């Protein structure tokens, strides 16, 4: 033990500063992200002095919450070297179902049916990835397509019933308590559950184990297909809950409600330091990633550039942030 300590110490003294910073950043990936977030907010305040207010903060958090929840789907699947491209469609399905079922059978049934549909898609994904061993990219792409088609057919039958969003979802989506969005009542327990669940439960550790080396995990007695089934069902449930929150926020269910959130949710997970090859990632980073994307969105809107230039900058910033992150942490 003391030998190791000594070599560690010797290494610390001999390694150059930037490598040590890189190691530190690698060990605590959230810190550089928070610094970046601070810088972006600083730029925002510099460009439009006085914009930073409790109201602005509440608004930013409000719009970051659904993104962060959808990014949780990407982060969790990425831990096992997967991805969930059906997450946004599932959120849309659940939003549409809850709005169309509520006027018929009441809000409770609406929420249950919506989440049931979401978990069903998740189970199909889990079956494809875990049992049939289809690449997650293809599997979730396919189920996303199927779910979109089902939604369009379903829409035909319910077009006359009208849409009604349960009051508590509107309260959750648009209401504020002490200046902060009510969505936090949902998000804080949710984030705590993910953060603690990944760290302290067996299931959380199984995800890291499967992502780091699936073969080794299997030889250690992990039944991988069961983990994949549970994981994708859970991810479907999260996407469904996101859809419920989002429809309460937007208050207008449509057939492509949450779809524009798909690529940003992948970007948030990646900016947050999740490796798409599995085995590495944290939800804390993902949350900061979602906040960064939301602030960048505000920043680009303020710049009053043409739409095209804004989209270009959005892409360049995602690339720049991840490139910087890889550069900082690769010398580990």
């Amino acid at each position, binding site marked *: 033990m003391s030998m190791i300590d000594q070599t560690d110490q010797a290494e610390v003294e001999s390694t150059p500063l930037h490598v040590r910073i890189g190691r530190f950043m690698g060990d605590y990936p959230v810190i550089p992200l928070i610094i970046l977030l601070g810088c972006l907010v600083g730029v925002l305040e510099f460009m439009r002095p006085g914009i930073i207010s409790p109201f602005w903060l509440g608004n930013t958090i409000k719009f970051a919450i659904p993104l962060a929840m959808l990014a949780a789907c990407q982060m969790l699947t990425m831990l096992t070297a997967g991805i969930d491209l059906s997450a946004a469609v599932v959120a849309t399905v659940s939003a549409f179902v809850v709005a169309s079922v509520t006027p018929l059978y009441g809000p409770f049934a609406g929420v249950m049916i919506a989440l049931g549909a979401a978990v069903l898609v998740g189970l199909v994904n889990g079956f494809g990835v875990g049992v049939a061993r289809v690449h997650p990219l293809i599997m979730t792409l396919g189920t996303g397509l199927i779910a979109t088609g089902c939604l369009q057919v379903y829409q035909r039958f319910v077009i006359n019933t009208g849409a009604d969003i349960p009051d508590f979802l509107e309260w959750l989506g648009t209401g504020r308590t002490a200046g902060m969005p009510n969505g936090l009542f949902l998000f804080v327990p949710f984030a705590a559950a993910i953060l603690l669940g990944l760290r302290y439960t067996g299931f959380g550790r199984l995800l890291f184990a499967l992502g780091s080396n699936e073969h080794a995990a299997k030889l250690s007695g992990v039944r991988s297909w069961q983990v994949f089934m549970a994981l994708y069902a859970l991810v479907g449930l999260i996407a469904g809950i996101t859809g419920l929150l989002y429809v309460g926020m937007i208050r207008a269910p449509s057939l492509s409600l949450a779809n524009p959130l798909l690529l940003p949710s992948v970007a948030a997970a990646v900016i947050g330091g999740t490796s798409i090859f599995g085995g590495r990632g944290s939800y804390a980073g993902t949350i900061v990633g979602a906040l960064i994307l939301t602030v960048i969105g505000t920043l680009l809107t303020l710049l009053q550039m043409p739409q095209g230039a804004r989209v270009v900058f959005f892409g*360049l910033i995602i690339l720049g942030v991840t490139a910087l992150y890889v550069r900082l942490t690769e010398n580990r």
Partner: protein
Amino acid sequence: MSFAQKHAWTLGLVALFLVLLGITKLVQPTFGASGLESLARAALPFAFATAAMAVVVIVGGIDLSVASIMAVCAVTAAVLMESMGAVPAVLITLAMGLGMGMINGALIVLTKVPDIVVTLAMLFVWEGTALLILNAPGGTVADGLQSAIAGSFLVDGLPNALIVMAFAIAIVWIPLKRSKLGLSIYAVGSSELAAFRSGVAVGRTKIAAYGICGLFCAMGGLSLIMLTGIGEPVPGPYLLASVAAVVLGGVVLGGGIGGLLGPIIAVFILRIIRTILTLAAVDPNVTTIIEGTIMVGVVMFGAVLMMRRRST
């Protein structure tokens, strides 16, 4: 390994396509040359997007920005053709596609960020670029180009669009596959480390593969304006469709295995399924469900087959 074994997947796809063609004929007895022609025309941009995706998947990557590059090339060509002849405009567009692809590749190699992330970011960059070039649908297309993919010549019943596509893809792919670069692309896709240790310049090979992807995207963009006669700055639904066709066509995600023929036949299979369902007066929304199911089903079937083969 005999020819049949080596090309089992492609032959299976051809058989599937012929069966589907037969079903089309059953559903609509009048389906003939003109039906085939419209099928080939509709498949044109999908085929180029799929060829583009196939090249980068073979080298072991993925390019999420294909549809956006196609949009940039389409608007560039449409704008250029307002002021100059068709030939220089097409050449400039092809060069631009190649350049954009190489930028993608260079960024992946230089930043060491995973390809899926780089091309996700570049998807936004190219999409924005297309909007900067042309804010709303516009531009024009030389008349000669539009008629080039209409009707059929040389062989009666063989659509022009099909010949143009086969020629455009073959002129790039066949010399490439036989060259050193082609071999390097397969080597890098199979095992980057092994390729590196055998003296393959991995970085340069990747950049070249992404460049070729961009070139095919430029062709796809040109085919788009040939079809519609107008430059449209918004990316079409080619990303997901091309990934599906590539996997259906027997190219393995992860690299090193597959060619371009399989994926292109897969494009036609996916298109003809749509035609059949339309002819059979199936609700277009149900068509989406069936397409998705077929895609997932075929890939699952393929995965099971491969597991069987490995275990025996």
